[in-house]
């Protein structure tokens, strides 16, 4: 979120500009902007007329009346503009996705009255939700940022890790609709300003470990009064010092050990927003891609001895093509081109363009943002929540982006950039990404200060829905209207030898001429957590010939299934050799 426009104008030859004079320095910038705008409308809708892919579910219909409050102040403390996250989770294991929403709260610069709280909404299985926050005991109350969901103790019930500015919280799911704050016992408070977090098994011992992104060195006493044109403004993060993120090893007894130093993570202070855990070099170990704001991104490569190497610059994912650090915020990993290797995505701030990194299979990546059209489409945007998923169940991974500029004065400073920005949808045709935002209905024209974004099928129709959180406003629940027009199979994975959530597992399936592999990554997006089930789209095909699960270590086995149903969810339990 830390860019400043002037410094981002494309580099043009000094030799030429010297000849041209100062007033002409921007000509290629102007040119590039015009090209970007002209390109947006090139893609005709690939979907039938009138049926838009997503419809907004109003609060009156869903029963979700909770709203985010940033606690905005005249001092413009930086955390006010960065939250918050959300999650789809099935906290009561009834097979229906519930919703968790993170709010601001009491901290050293805010003491709201009445107090603010997070919210847990139970899915009523009829399209409505009931607020069960109080009963569940997950209101939190600090200045919340994000949420990561994972069954860290393997009891079959998802637990919650709520990141906060101040001190984060681990809520253990008691299995009876209630949770217990076990932060102190577990040793995962992670003091400071935590942002995104991810559950994953970094040492392949079958237990979920925890990586917690840490943003800048900030508290009320360190707040800096920034301004533009005499008005107070949110500071760019460059003004604050970087901090190292946290890595906690799960000891298997309800406690965690801080392995930030021994793992090598501590050597790299950053300003981390988004994180995704995925195996980018296919060595069977989970790596971490971390988006930093105004600093180079990190790609922590898991070397298997409890140690990470940070190789982002060598890998080509640290900087822009010009070698400039950008304002990385949301991230994700997916094999969008189906070549068997995980690719990466990072959203940046306006003027910087987002990056889609294609894996070269040798621990390097190429940024395909320009040839894919994503660079032009996102040139003026600022991106936070994002996720690769197959919204139309045609078997290809599409891309959903939630946007919004962090600076509420941006419109007076930079014409052409807006504070509230629309959502974006890119459809993967199997050969290219098409920006279908303009053809995807009014919700993609609605200006939002979007932040968190989670994907989940709350109505169990096989069409993945989307939950978007909005800074200082109510969240947006979007029902997918097109995914169920194609056929699909939903798969829940339960690890036994492997980690309970099957993070790192891959599912390969064949349906006639369609062969696809889906990998279950840890995290992705921004401050948010997703439906743990994989939805395998098969288009108009009516049969899945076979399905093979490759479990992560220490299980590591492959299990093959045939005689599979379609258009319903199944659960595969590691080692049981069958689906149910």
């Amino acid at each position, binding site marked *: 979120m830390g860019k*400043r*426009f*002037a*410094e981002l104008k494309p*580099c*043009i*030859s*000094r*030799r*030429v500009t010297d*000849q*041209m*004079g*100062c*007033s*002409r320095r*921007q*000509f*290629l910038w*102007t*040119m*590039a902007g*015009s*090209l970007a705008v*002209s390109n947006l409308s090139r893609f005709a809708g690939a979907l039938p007329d009138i049926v838009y892919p997503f419809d907004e579910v109003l609060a009156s219909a869903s029963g979700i009346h909770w709203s985010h409050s940033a606690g905005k102040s005249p001092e413009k403390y930086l955390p006010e503009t960065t939250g918050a996250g959300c999650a789809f989770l099935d906290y009561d294991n009834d097979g229906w996705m519930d919703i968790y929403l993170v709010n601001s709260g009491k901290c050293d610069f805010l003491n709201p009255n009445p107090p603010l709280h997070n919210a847990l909404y139970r899915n009523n299985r009829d399209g409505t939700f009931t607020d069960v926050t109080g009963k569940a005991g997950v209101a939190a109350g600090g200045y919340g940022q994000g949420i990561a969901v994972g069954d860290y103790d393997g009891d079959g019930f998802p637990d919650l890790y709520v990141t906060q500015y101040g001190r984060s919280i681990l809520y253990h799911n008691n299995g009876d609709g209630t949770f217990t704050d076990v932060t102190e016992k577990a040793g995962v408070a992670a003091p400071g300003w935590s942002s995104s977090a991810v559950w994953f098994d970094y040492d392949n011992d079958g237990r979920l470990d925890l990586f917690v992104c840490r943003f800048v*060195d900030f508290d009320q006493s360190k707040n*800096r*009064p*920034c*301004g*533009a044109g005499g008005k107070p*403004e949110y*500071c*760019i993060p*460059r*003004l*604050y*010092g970087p901090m190292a993120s946290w890595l906690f090893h799960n000891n298997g007894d309800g406690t965690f050990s801080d392995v930030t130093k021994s793992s090598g993570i501590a050597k790299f202070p950053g300003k981390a927003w988004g994180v995704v855990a995925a195996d980018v070099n296919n060595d069977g170990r989970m790596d971490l891609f971390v988006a930093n704001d*105004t*600093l*180079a991104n990190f790609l922590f490569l898991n070397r298997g001895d409890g140690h990470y190497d940070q190789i982002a*610059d*060598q890998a*080509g994912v640290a*900087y822009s*093509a*010009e*070698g*400039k*650090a950008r304002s990385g915020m949301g991230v994700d990993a997916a094999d969008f081109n189906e070549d068997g290797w995980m690719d990466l995505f990072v959203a940046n701030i306006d003027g910087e363009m987002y990056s889609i990194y294609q894996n070269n299979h040798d621990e*390097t990546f*190429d940024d395909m943002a*320009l*040839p894919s059209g994503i660079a032009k489409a996102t040139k003026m945007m600022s991106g936070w929540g994002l996720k690769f998923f197959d919204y139309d169940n045609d078997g290809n991974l599409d891309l959903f982006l939630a946007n919004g500029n962090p600076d509420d004065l941006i419109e007076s*400073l*930079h014409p052409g950039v807006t504070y509230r920005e629309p959502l974006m949808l890119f459809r993967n045709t199997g050969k290219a990404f098409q920006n279908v935002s303009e053809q995807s209905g009014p919700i993609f024209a609605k200006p939002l200060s979007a932040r968190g974004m989670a994907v989940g099928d709350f109505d169990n129709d096989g069409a993945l829905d989307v939950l978007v959180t909005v800074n200082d406003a109510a969240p947006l629940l979007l029902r997918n209207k097109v995914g169920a027009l194609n056929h699909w199979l939903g798969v829940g994975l339960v690890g036994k030898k492997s980690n309970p959530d099957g993070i790192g597992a891959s599912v390969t399936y064949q349906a006639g001429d369609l062969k696809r592999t889906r990998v279950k990554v840890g995290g992705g997006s921004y401050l948010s957590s997703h439906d743990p089930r994989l939805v395998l789209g098969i288009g108009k095909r009516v049969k899945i010939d076979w399905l093979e699960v490759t479990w992560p270590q220490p299980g590591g086995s492959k299990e093959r299934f045939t005689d599979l149903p379609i258009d319903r969810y199944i659960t595969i339990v590691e080692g049981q050799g069958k689906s149910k």
Partner: protein
Amino acid sequence: MSRYLYLALVSLFVCAFFSLTSPAQVAKKAGDVAASGKQAVNLAKAGRCKEALPGLKRAAQHDADPALKRDAGFAGVRCAMTIGETESAIDFLRFLKREFPRDPDVLYLAVHTYSDLSTRASLELAMTAPASPEAHQLNAESLEVQGKWDEAEKEYRQILTQNPNRPGIHYRLGRILLSKPDFGPAMAEQAKGEFQQELAIDPSNAGAEYVLGALARQNQQWDEAIQHFSQAAKLDAGFGDAFLDLGMSLVTVKKYSEAIPPLETAVKLEPQNPTAHYNLAVAYRRGGRQTDAEREFAIHRKMTEQNAAPPGSSQENPN
């Protein structure tokens, strides 16, 4: 009197002065110069510039009193400009910048003096040869600076009616088209045509080649971009950005070995450019030269860290 003759005479005078006079005489002479210098400054203040100038020149050379030298320098610039002795004005200005290099008043005076000199030269051109291509070109450039793209374009087109093959005009027309606020794909094609016409007239215009390369790169026409950047670099061996953009384009199309030579040149020409180091590092890395890559990555990292503003450096967001 030319500046050089003047300085030579002053030098001779100073040498003679020190070789033929006693310390007491030196002190007396110094006092005389100071007195006459003050008098010259007062004459200048009274607007009697012609009378003041000789005394101001002497006082400016007087090394005993910095304040007097400064006053004399300022008065000298103003007086010389007032009576049209532009060479003397420039001499006084050079003297002030040499003696008081970081003085904001001096820098401010320099801005106004050079601006005034520029205006006078423009007027002289307008009065002397109002219909000349040079006069039209100057007017067009002025309109460009003001963002009056259409009017500037008309002026340039006027030059072409007089001399269709005048070098540099199609180049400038191309740039104007790229600068217009209503710029679009059609205008990009038009601009491209102007740069091509420029090259037909003046095949040595490296700037035109470079911009054609940049236009091709915007459209991801990498072969064409590489061709134009190569040509720009060939035409101007000191054109660092041409080498850099050539190398970056080659990196984009994964021709890493071919990218290394132009990027190495770019780094030599612009050693403080982090983009050049970064792309050279990438080319080395992908070209299998790991040690070289690590060296360049380290240089780039160091530059990037230095450029990152430390906390406490600014209270204002650098928009």
